[in-house]
Structure formats: structure tokens, C-alpha cells
């Protein structure tokens, strides 16, 4: 059997590399939509995933916002969870042991309430060999102290990224907020400050009103919009960022099906994250992975990397 035959028999390769991390395929959950992994383990083997990203963690446990915390909108949902999480210690004690059974790299999404906390978290994460990479959330629009300042100001973003980069051992993925005038400015700032990869986008700040009670539908008044409604915005921003920076970009926002993931990959994303779709269908990610493989076959592509960035923009 020669090389070409082998490839054909084995099916197309979906493996990608992000900042030194080898992923068996480019599909991973978006932070905050997959709990700590465990919650979705009954539905499929977590080893099928390219990586696992945790709910955003902080130094100390965090309570989050009052309820209602979620509201459905047309083809989207608003959430104002408020970054509720068990804290890094409880995560390592109670959640990590479960994840250790799998061979899929675990990426910890994290945030701090102050610059110091960000630095402290980075130091803690550096000591944890099970943590394959860290995703820095500088973009959560829900919590006043939880990133809004860092994520929308290039100077502040660069400062926190540089600090975290100094302390972290693992690859650093920085997650950008879409709530900015020019996402390329932010992308450039975090790349220069040491980001090894960029994920975008986080949610867009939105609001909904219950016209019967005339109250906001979220206790927090505003929340983050996610789901298929935001996909065209996410694809645009990913495309812009890909053309701006050299580090790999992970596309997030409204991916429900393989076709959606492919829009991001063709636009240049090296990998994708799937968020809200997990709620709609716990089997969304395995279906997307299967769909990518099918697409490669149909397009006669042996390696998904041939699809990445293959957008034809002129006539």
C-alpha cells in the first residue's frame, strides 16, 4: 500500500496545530457552554474532541449573577451567568480527575477581577501539567470587573496579556470581545504582547424586554448574545484578525453545523469552538467533526489544512 492509498483508506486528516498543541481535529467546545466536560460525557466520548475548554475559572469561586440569567432571542440567546465558577482549586480537586481519563488536551479558560489576579492565576496554571494551554478571557461583557476594561482597550489588553505570558508556561490563547470598533487593533495589541493564539469572538452585549411586565428579561439587564444570529459577525471578525496577525486564530460564534464551522476555516481559522450549539444538541460537536470529514472527502481534500484560509476573494 503506497502513501496515497494509505491516506485514502485512513480518511482525510483533520489534525491541526495551534501554538504547539497538536489537536486531532479542529473542534472544541467554547468556554462556559460545556461545563467542566463531565456534563456532556454521557452523550459521547470526550476523546473525540480536538480539545476541551473549561468554563471560565478564577482564583476564588465566583457566585455570578441573579436569575433570570438566560433569555432566548431570535436564533440566539442572551446569557448573564456572571462567570459563576468553582474556582481553580475546586476545579483541580473535583473536576480535573474526571478529565484525566481522556487523552484530549484540556485548555483552561480563566479571568481575574484585577490585574494581580490575572497574574496570580497564570502562576497557578503554570504549575499544572494537566493544563495543556490556557485561554485568557479579557472579553466577558457581563461582569463589570471581569474583563470589559481589558478587552476593549488595546493598552490594558496588552498589559494583562504580557503579565500572563510572563508567568504562564503553556501556550496562551487570548479570547477577544467583539464589542469594539476595530477588532484588528485589539488583535495586534495582544499578539505583540505575547499571545500564542487568538480566539474570537466572545458574546455581543444585548438586551431583551418582557413587554408584559415591562422588565428586562435578564436580572442583570444586559447579557451576552450567542448562537447562529451572531455568526456573520464572527466570520467577519475572524477573517479580519486572520489577515492582521501571524498567530493562529480560533473561530467562535454561532457554529451549529459543519457547514458553519467550514465558513470559519475557509476564512482562515485554524480551529473552531462550538458554544450554544451544545445546548441545542449535545451531539453537535461529534456531528460537526463527521461533517468536516465528509466535506473533505467530497472536495477531494486529504488534509483539513488545505481548507484553512482557502477563501477566494477575487473575481
Amino acid at each position, binding site marked *: 500500500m503506497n502513501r496515497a492509498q494509505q491516506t485514502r483508506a485512513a480518511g482525510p486528516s483533520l489534525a491541526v496545530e495551534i501554538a504547539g498543541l497538536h489537536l486531532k481535529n479542529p473542534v472544541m467546545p467554547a468556554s462556559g*457552554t460545556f461545563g467542566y466536560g463531565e*456534563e456532556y460525557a454521557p452523550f459521547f466520548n470526550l476523546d473525540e474532541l480536538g480539545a476541551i475548554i473549561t*468554563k471560565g475559572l478564577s482564583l476564588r469561586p465566583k457566585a*455570578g449573577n441573579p436569575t433570570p440569567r*438566560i433569555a*432566548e432571542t*431570535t*436564533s440566539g440567546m442572551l446569557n448573564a*451567568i456572571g462567570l459563576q465558577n468553582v474556582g481553580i482549586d475546586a476545579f483541580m480537586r473535583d473536576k480535573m480527575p474526571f478529565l484525566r481519563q481522556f487523552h484530549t488536551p484540556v485548555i483552561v479558560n480563566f479571568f481575574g477581577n484585577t490585574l494581580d489576579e490575572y497574574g496570580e492565576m497564570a502562576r497557578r496554571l503554570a504549575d499544572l501539567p494537566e493544563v495543556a494551554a490556557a485561554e485568557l478571557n479579557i472579553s466577558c461583557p457581563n461582569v463589570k470587573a471581569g474583563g470589559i476594561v481589558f478587552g476593549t482597550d488595546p493598552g490594558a489588553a496588552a498589559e494583562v496579556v504580557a503579565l500572563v505570558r510572563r508567568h504562564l508556561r503553556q501556550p496562551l490563547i487570548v479570547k477577544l470581545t467583539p464589542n469594539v470598533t476595530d477588532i484588528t487593533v485589539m488583535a495586534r495589541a495582544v499578539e505583540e504582547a505575547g499571545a500564542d493564539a487568538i480566539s474570537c469572538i466572545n458574546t455581543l452585549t444585548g438586551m431583551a424586554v418582557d413587554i408584559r411586565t415591562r422588565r428586562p428579561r435578564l436580572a442583570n439587564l444586559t447579557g451576552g448574545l450567542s448562537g447562529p444570529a451572531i455568526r456573520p459577525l464572527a466570520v467577519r471578525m475572524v477573517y479580519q484578525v486572520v489577515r492582521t496577525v501571524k498567530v493562529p486564530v480560533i473561530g467562535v460564534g454561532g457554529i451549529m453545523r459543519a457547514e458553519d464551522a467550514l465558513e470559519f476555516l475557509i476564512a482562515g481559522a485554524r480551529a473552531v469552538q462550538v458554544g450554544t450549539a451544545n*445546548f441545542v444538541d449535545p451531539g453537535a460537536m461529534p456531528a460537526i467533526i463527521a461533517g468536516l470529514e465528509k466535506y473533505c472527502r467530497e472536495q477531494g481534500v486529504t488534509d483539513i489544512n488545505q481548507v484553512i484560509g482557502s477563501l477566494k476573494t477575487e473575481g
Partner: protein
Amino acid sequence: MEQDLLMTNLKTTILSNQEVAPGYFRMRILAPGFVTSARPGQFLMLRVLDGMEPLLRRPFGIFRTGWLPADCQGLPPKEYVEILYKVVGSGTTLMKDLHQGDGVEILGPLGKGFELLDAPEQILVGGGIGLVPLFMLAAQLVKRGRVRLLMGGRCRDDILAVTEFERLGVETYVSTDDGSLGEAGLVTEVLVRQLERLPQAAVYACGPTAMLRAVHGICAARDVPLQVSLEAYMACGVGACLGCVVAGAEHTEQNPQYLCTCKEGPVFRAGQLLWHKLEEPRDVCGCNEEEP
């Protein structure tokens, strides 16, 4: 944990979907595995269409499960699950127009159900559509002793499935705000009277938050054990999104304690909850003015 491993996302079909009272429907869905896995008080998340609208699944209590008899062609019997729902918004409006043979996806059985206590008297309190999770509970409790159902609603249309409870051997006490069926008045008044006679009872309740709060007050004052089934806005139904949390008894602003309604509930012992923080997700049974 063993509970989790039984969770499935079933792409399945509707067996029947009928209006049982004005605005209330009963849907029977083909559901392999549900008879053995579903426990009283659990729920499922239903997805109507394959499209993007409505985006999120809708949570519904499991009314009951059962077997379709083996058919004449010798095919084996099939398991089904039944839900009972009130048409309130976009999702349930789509649901009511579905027919036998139409496809739906159901995720479940989800959550923690009722703990069956060994009390000498078992009292179930249902408000409107809140009676749903009490049926499977009743079916199990009648094996242990005497079971009473106190069923309240705004009017006769809100009183569902009472004869089915009676067929199980449950004694039923119906009350409506307008007196159009059973006694005129609040279900909580009936509860007070019952507990006077049966101070040893255990109470299981589901209904609007205002009713549950009143039931809690009544039971707490008499030291009667109470379990309640709650509703909350849900996105995932499996504990992943943290959208459905409810404040636990220990909850303070400084030391927050949140419980997931989908995973640690929907059934809670009354003592687990911080009652004054409890919110009404929305008036679904038409009787949220029930607070006495």
C-alpha cells in the same frame, strides 16, 4: 453518576398529541429506554424542529412512561413517554400543531427526582400544570400506603388528569379559585385542613412559586417534610450553562451558594432552598395569584 449514563438524546417520533383541556395538550412520544430509566420528578428537554427557531429546547416534566403493546405483526412492545403541557409561547405553539409521526428530539430523563419517604401519609400538592411530575410519584407511593392529591387551579380547565390519579387509588381533593370545579378556594387552605388531621404526613408539591412558598410556610410551621419541584429558565438541562440556578439555603451575598435546577433539582427538599430569593420564572399554570 449511573443516572448520567442513562441520559440520551433521542431523535424520535410523536405517537399522539391531543388537546385535553382548553390550552392543555398531552403528547405521547416513542422513547426507548424511558420506562426503566425515568424516575418520578425527572424531566426532559424537547426540541421541536430541526431548524434554528426556536433555538433552545423546552423543559417538560415527565408525566408518565409506559409500553405500547406488541403489535399484531409480532413486533416487540415499545416504550413511550408522555408529557402534558400548556400552550404559553413560541415553542409550545409550534408543539400543539404537531401530529403523529412528526419528529421530535428529546433529551432525558434529566435531573433529580423525588425522594420517596416512608411517611404514614403522603400528600401531593399540585397547582395547574404543576401536577405533571406528581403522577409517576403517586404511582410509586400508592404501593407504600395512602396517597392524597390536593389539586388546585384557577378554574375547571386547569384541573387535569384527576381521574387518572384516582385510578391509581389516590384520594383527590380538587379546589378552584372560582369554584367551577371542586371546592372554591386555594389548594393551600385544603392543605392546612389535611395537615391538621394528618400531622405525620410527607408533602410533595409542584406548581407556581407563590403556591410553593405558601406550602413551604405551612409545612415548615408544622415540621412536615416537604419536597418541591421548581421551574427555571434553562438552556442546557445538564448542568453545563449555569443558567437555571436557584439560591441554596446557605446562600449569602458574601458566600453565594447556587444550585442547578436542572441537575441538583428540579426536585429539592424545602430545607435546601433560600425561600425569600425564589423567583417565578413565569406564570404557566394560570394560578400565580394563589398565594394566600
